[in-house]
């Protein structure tokens, strides 16, 4: 399991587990961050924080410290 914050641009993976407080986990889950869901790292902001992701076909951004709470399993790398 690798934290999502360690992923580079263009990498993808599958969510294994979400850590952190209840409200935060709940919010992420409602936005579609469910176990087994694929996440694609679209890009990091110019100052390297936050990070833009594609989940369930839409774009969403998390702060890097939040992305660190999402534990992932890495999948094959692709160019967008």
């Amino acid at each position, binding site marked *: 399991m690798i934290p999502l914050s360690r992923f580079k641009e263009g990498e993808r993976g599958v969510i294994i587990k979400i850590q952190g407080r209840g409200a935060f986990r*709940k*919010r992420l889950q409602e936005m579609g961050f469910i176990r087994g869901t694929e996440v694609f790292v679209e890009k990091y902001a110019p100052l390297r924080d936050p990070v833009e992701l594609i989940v369930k076909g839409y774009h969403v951004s998390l702060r890097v410290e939040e992305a660190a709470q999402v534990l992932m399993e890495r999948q094959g790398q692709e160019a967008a």
Partner: protein
Amino acid sequence: MTKETITVALAGNPNSGKTTIFNHITGTRQHVGNWPGVTVEKKEGLIQHNGHRLRVVDLPGTYSLTAYSLEEIVARRFLVEEKPDVVVDIVDASNLERNLYLATQLIELGVKLILALNMADVAEARGHEIDSGKLGTLLGVPVVFTVGTKNQGIKELLDKVVAVAEDRDTVSRHIHIAYGHELEKEIKKIQDVIWQDPSIGRRYSTRWLAVKLLENDGAVKEGVGALGGIGSRILAQADAGRARLTQLYQDDTEMVLTDQRYGFIGGALKEVLRVSAASKFDLSRQIDLVLTNRLLGFPIFIFFIWAMFQLTFTLGAYPMAWLDAGVGWLGGVVAKVLPAGVFRDLVVDGVIAGVGSVIIFLPNILLLFFCIALFEDTGYLARAAFIMDRVMHLIGLHGKSFIPMLMGFGCNAPAIMAARTLESERDRILTILINPLMSCSARLPVYVLLAGTFFGASAGNVIFSIYALGIALAIAMGKLFRLTLFRGESAPFVLELPPYRVPTLKSLLIHMWDRSAIFLRKMGGVILVGSMVVWFLGAFPRQPVAPVVEPVARSQTAPVTPDPAELSSAGPRSRHDKEAPERERLRLERSYLGRLGRVIQPIFAPLGFDWQTSVAVLSGFVAKEIVVSTLGVLYAAGSEGNDENEALRGALRASGMTPLAAYALMAFVLTYVPCLATVGAIRRETNSWKWTAFSIAYTLTLAWVVAFVIFQGGRLIGLA
């Protein structure tokens, strides 16, 4: 045909195009207000459709109904307590999976639901083929396709609303989202306890209550707890169930339920959604690669903000000048029409001058809100927040706070209103509280006068240092408030970056007008009262001024070329005759404002202010430009000089004010309450007198402390 009004609530995710649909349904017949007790905007409209009266209420855009954010609490309270006849869930058809999550919660709530698959054209262009009939059957909810931006499907939607309200729709039926054996068992057990008191079941869906209790929902638990004996039995059953499920799944029950809902959605989508791999080209994504590019992102962002400023303040300066002239003309006309006396002075010097000083900002406000609407509706605002969040987070603010903070350099009143784009109330109030520390353009004339008088060639640097001081204070206060008043962890950032869209002119104009109208209506009231009070303090008591001063004034060599405007407006109390300045100075000195200045002068003495400066600072409550004109009245009278400004500068230098005291005064002007309009905006946007009073109190205290430190500290190290 029933003549009763059908209440329709529009629910939906942010960025689902809900507002556009609402605007199409209600047109200009909409009313904007606030939800009771909170600052969330409430919009509703009353319309006629085929002989039915529809009251359409736009709920805040939410991703869910969990009652974590204020918007969710408001939306849920309306659905549960006011029980609208029909709920329309506006769904972004091109982003079906996440959008349907809210639908599952609405289904669970047991409301009469209609699904509007909006942006049907976008979904189609992306190769998404949706079997709406099957989706409707699976969810037990009638489905209508709409394209909000092109006004398509609205009529069908309204037809459906009436049909569902009258129970004529054949698709509508109540379904249960199946949560699997273990969860269902616990839901059933809780429902059984609830049914021991049948009156509960008549008011709420027992299944919804049971599910919410398993989710450990605070609001529902509180409500059930208030029921007394039966309430505590229900809660005990729910606690037992939750404990067993947590043990079983090794996870919080609410997480398991969310998992299950997405599982349900996934299952449904497998049957109704077909995605052809046709067009892989995503224009929005390509645009974003440029606009949030690592190297280009910031320059482009800065350019947009620069362009917004130019448009607002440079282009806006023209209509502003026209309005200013118009206000002046109106004042002149009214002065001629009304008989001389207290009433005329009240109308001309109090009402027209005071309200006029705010009205002239209207062009700025319109243009500014047009730009913001453009940023918001195209989707760029979310990108601006994405780019700026790292910087703003340092002060404990959200990326979206950047625009209000920046706009504060122009004018704090609209800037505070721009804080509406922030979703979390904490972020919003914090942004509003520190916004006045961004030095607005109205304070510039004060700096220019003082720095120009006392610092000569280095005036530019001195003024710059005042702006920098404002930013430093904002950062410090932001940190301080975060650590004291807004303690605890900040709300999760989790920001959706919606696809770029071409906005419709109609929605841009409605957006712009909504906010500007609020400015006019509400601030008109505050300003009106405030200017009358200040006028009164400055104009009374009205004892005639002793003629002793006349010889002094007469001794001045006056150029005898009165301009026609002065002649035409010359009345019994004309301010344009030559002895007027001296008379005006004496009058002001003896007025309540002047007396007040003398009374409060001891408070300001440690800052190096004399009584004239104290009065000027007092009058600056209305607007900062007035500080200059008050100083002008109090100091400049009787002094020699070709132009008014030069005279004032000379008088200031002669008054014994030191550069250090001048700098302390500038710092004070920077920090304390910007103007009445800003106070009005704070009151309006926080919807709380408490926060308004706090804002006034803290800026005054801070201003005093800062000026004190500068003046006394400077003296200690021998600067003056």
